[in-house]
């Protein structure tokens, strides 16, 4: 008989990606995944078979992140921008500057915005699922994703009614008003 926990391993890549979007550096992200995995294992009874295991794991992960983060925030004030300045964002495999700049802009969003956008925009959860996972109203998730998209557009220097192909360094240089490195 197969153990339903065998499925856990298949969610690890997505858990790491989600953790990275929250923790913003890969060492902290992997610690977060590790803590979440231990919790998931020891509380596996609370997983309802037949429901979405990824959603369940992501819920554990974000709860773990917020409980750690709140504790830490009490100890060290972390004003906006400080974390962003310490980012260790790796360029994507194709090394494109566009992706890196997008990542840097993304990392400047607040926790709730990064979370909502990752769940809905990147992972493809419905607003309802994301609201369940975050323990908030559907409207809250909607407004977080809308604000996050708006803020990203500002940070990237993108404006509505203009079309961009964010695919290469030169285009991005034009987009961001910075010279291509």
């Amino acid at each position, binding site marked *: 008989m197969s153990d339903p926990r065998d499925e856990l391993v298949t969610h690890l890549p997505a858990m790491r*990606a989600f953790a990275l979007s929250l923790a913003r550096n890969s060492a902290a992200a992997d610690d977060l995944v590790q803590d979440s*995995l231990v919790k998931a294992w020891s509380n596996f009874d609370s997983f309802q078979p037949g429901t979405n295991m990824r959603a369940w794991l992501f819920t554990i992960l974000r709860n773990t992140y917020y409980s750690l983060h709140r504790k830490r925030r009490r100890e060290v004030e972390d004003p906006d921008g400080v974390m962003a300045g310490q980012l260790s964002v790796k360029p994507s495999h194709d090394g494109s500057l566009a992706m890196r700049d997008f990542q840097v802009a993304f990392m400047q969003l607040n926790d709730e915005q990064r979370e909502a956008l990752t769940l809905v*925009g*990147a992972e493809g959860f419905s607003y309802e699922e994301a609201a369940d996972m975050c323990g908030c109203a559907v409207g809250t998730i909607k407004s977080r994703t809308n604000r996050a998209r708006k803020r990203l557009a500002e940070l990237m220097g993108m404006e509505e009614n203009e079309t961009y192909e*964010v695919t290469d360094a030169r285009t991005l240089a034009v987009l961001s008003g910075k010279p291509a490195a």
Partner: protein
Amino acid sequence: MSEKPKNRLDEQIDENLRRVYQSAVNEPVPDRFAQLLAQLRKSETDSEKSEADA
């Protein structure tokens, strides 16, 4: 029937978002996680054994 199209800017943002996210998903998972899972399973088996032995 015209469904309100998502604006082009949002589409581009989501496309970038998915690409960045996908590249993170595609990263190889470090061995420590396989080891952790093996360890969790083992400690459980061990404690079951010791319960059975008791």
